[in-house]
């Protein structure tokens, strides 16, 4: 190296384009989407965006499968390959996570694409002041922000990179790349715009706050190991170099940044507010893809970089998992807004997945992978149903408005009840399978008290899920009850996909479980 530098020549980096192609495709199409915004007349934009976004996500998914089935990548039982000069890891768990993200993002984009006049969730003009005449003009002109598509693609690109990042610097960049579009998207709600803007602001401020912690943690870890590569940190941690305070403090702060993204208690404050304020399709995107991506990164960091320190981080992570499960389930009980309820439920579920993460075994990894995929579908489906129940002011999110829904729209209420039962973990739904898998892994990892807490909080959680079901089916509708709109093919497809995935993964979970355990068999590449 020094010789080349002395000569003033830099050897060009080698980039494994074939292994990175899904990610590069998504980023490329995001840029193409921006060009569409710049040069294509407004009427034609949506169609082109749909083709680019949906087609791109589908193509990226196919490419992911191609990469995953590549013989050369996993030759001689290799766990994978570290590509792009050590910045990106391509291994089986990552590919599983990326595939999951791409499928879930596809379904979320179906929700985002819903544009029949009543159901579109995005503001006509984000720059117009809420309640002003300009806003009315924009609404009357029938325009909508089509920038949401490239923004979504950028976010998805960041989500793909986040769990694949093999060094903390790349991980930080990916974190920002996935977060920034989400901050923007959160503020673009068509109805209740002040709430939406407030949510975006909160998410941005707290996100920046957590990013600062994350970055500080990276600095401390760099100080400890002299490198930001996860494997180098692991190597430095295992070679006894004396004081490890920098390592541990760095671990705590990097962990904080990741736990913030999954919404673990006490870093969960943003979640209910943001989930409630954001446009519901964006909430669905965040509740599924972001969570999957953040868990992917969390798994990689804790399994690869801190895999030797299990005994150090386990007590703290135990506490956080317990807090997350219990607080999520507890606070959800007194919620009166459907989206907030689902947000707290998402917090509780993050706690359940954490029990799988804490096991720090291949079984824990595969159980977490399965849970993430299963939960993602169910949660998108649930939010899709939320977009359908509307009153003149937009979505009717208050629970009292959902009373008696089962009597007027039995199908929609039935589907929602089914999703809630899946969240509660009733057998023959994917929720049961996932919970069973993570708890099993946790028990095998010796975390029996954790599982007991998990089961107890599931019971508490089941209470409020059932409460909603009872409300929908056994109460009389309010006089100002909202109506259920007939969705276009996009939302219907998202709901149907959610139902099908929830049923199939509950009744015949074996193929996906097998895939997850195959993906997890060799853990992460180092």
């Amino acid at each position, binding site marked *: 190296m020094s010789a080349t530098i002395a000569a003033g020549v830099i050897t060009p980096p080698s980039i494994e384009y074939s292994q990175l192609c899904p990610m590069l495709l998504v980023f490329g199409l*995001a840029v193409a989407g*921006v060009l569409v915004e710049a040069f294509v007349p407004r009427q034609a934009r949506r169609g082109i965006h749909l083709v680019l976004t949906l087609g791109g996500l589908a193509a990226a998914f196919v490419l992911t499968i191609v990469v995953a089935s590549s013989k050369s990548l996993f030759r001689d039982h290799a766990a994978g390959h570290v590509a792009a000069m050590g910045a990106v890891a391509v291994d089986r768990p990552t590919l599983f996570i990326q595939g999951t993200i791409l499928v879930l993002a596809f379904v979320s984009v179906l929700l985002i694409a819903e544009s029949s006049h009543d159901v579109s969730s995005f503001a006509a003009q984000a720059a117009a002041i809420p*309640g002003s005449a300009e806003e009315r003009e924009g609404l009357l*002109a029938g325009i909508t922000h089509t*920038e949401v598509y490239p923004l979504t693609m950028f976010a998805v690109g960041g989500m793909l990179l986040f769990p694949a990042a093999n060094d903390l610097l790349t991980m930080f960049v990916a974190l920002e*790349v996935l977060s920034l579009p989400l901050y*923007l998207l959160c*503020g673009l709600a068509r109805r209740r715009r002040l709430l939406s803007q407030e949510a975006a602001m909160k998410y941005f401020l707290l996100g920046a706050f957590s990013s600062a912690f994350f970055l500080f943690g990276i600095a401390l870890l760099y100080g400890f190991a002299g490198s930001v590569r996860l494997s180098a940190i692991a190597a430095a941690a295992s070679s006894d170099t004396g004081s490890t305070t920098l390592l541990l403090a760095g671990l705590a702060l990097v962990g904080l940044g990741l736990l913030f993204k999954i919404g673990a208690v006490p870093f969960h404050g943003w979640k209910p507010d943001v989930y409630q304020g954001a446009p519901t399709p964006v909430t669905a995107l965040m509740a599924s893809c972001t969570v999957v991506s953040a868990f992917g990164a969390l798994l990689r960091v804790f399994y690869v970089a801190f895999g030797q320190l299990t005994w150090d981080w386990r007590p703290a992570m135990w506490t956080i998992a317990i807090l997350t499960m219990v607080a999520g389930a507890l606070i959800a009980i007194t919620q009166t807004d459907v989206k907030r309820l689902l947000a707290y439920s998402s917090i509780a579920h993050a706690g359940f997945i954490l029990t799988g993460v804490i096991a720090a075994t291949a079984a824990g990894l595969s159980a977490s992978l399965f849970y993430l995929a299963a939960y993602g579908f169910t949660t998108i489906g649930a939010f899709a149903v939320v977009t359908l129940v509307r009153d003149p002011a937009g979505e009717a999110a208050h629970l009292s408005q959902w009373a008696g829904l089962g009597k007027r729209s039995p199908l929609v209420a039935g589907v929602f009840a089914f999703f809630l039962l899946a969240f509660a973990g009733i057998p023959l739904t994917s929720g049961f399978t996932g919970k069973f898998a993570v708890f099993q892994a946790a028990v095998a990892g010796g975390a029996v008290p954790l599982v007991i807490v998990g089961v107890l909080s599931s019971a508490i959680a089941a209470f409020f899920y059932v409460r909603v079901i009872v409300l929908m089916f056994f109460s009389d509708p309010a006089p100002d009850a909202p109506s259920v709109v007939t969705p276009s093919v996009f939302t219907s497809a998202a709901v149907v996909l959610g139902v099908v995935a929830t049923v199939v993964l509950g009744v015949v979970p074996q193929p996906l479980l097998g895939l997850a355990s195959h993906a997890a068999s060799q853990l992460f590449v180092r």
Partner: protein
Amino acid sequence: MSHLTTLAATTAAGPGAASITQNLVFWVLAVISVTAGVGMVLARRAVHCALMLAIVMLSLAVLYALAGAPFLAFVQVIVYTGAVLMLFLFVLMLVGVSSADSIVETIKGQRLAAGVVGTGMLILLALGIGHGAIGGARPLTSRNGSGNVSGIADLIFTKYVFPFEVTSALLITAALGAMVLAHRERTTPKPTQRQLSRQRIAGSHPTPLPGPGTYAQHNSVDMPAMLPDGTPSELSVSPVITRRGLSSQEAGGPPPGQVEAPGKQEARP
């Protein structure tokens, strides 16, 4: 403390080469930048904050230079102190240079708790970093080779080329986001010059509107001009800015939230 000194020295010029000058500069700048940073958070006026931030940036630039990264130091000065901060200041000037935050705390115990937790965190980090062993970090000069620029280029374009390129996605997103949040598309045809002039003659103010009372009492545009009888002129301040010193009712203007009413704007050619 000795640990920290070693830390500073190690990062500065490598274990053997810690000179007294370097140590001295490090410590002085450390104190200055941390003080400025704390000041930035505590200052009530936005302009003061911006200036404090400039001090932090400049201190950092000097520290970079001291650590053997002159290129980084100059970029820091040019980009952050030069460009970014100046933009901040422009905006601050536009919205009123002496605008200040409300510092009334409504949450009970918030400040006390924040203070306690902050102190605790400080102690913990001091303990952690103070006892920390710096491993593996090499002096920056070892990467510099034929110069700081080529050293950085080597890192950016080989080892970290992927994150570097992905950063572009961040920039594009930021630009796109700015457009989304700030740009309002026209939904009506743009009024022609003729329409505008007609409107103006037909309106109540054919003459140009009075300028703001800048320099009358304060040097910013949010000060209304005084009419001959001593009352403030409601027309003298751009409707996008909150008038200073007067509630909107006193100034006779519309309540906030309607300040962008279209008729109002068209009255100001």
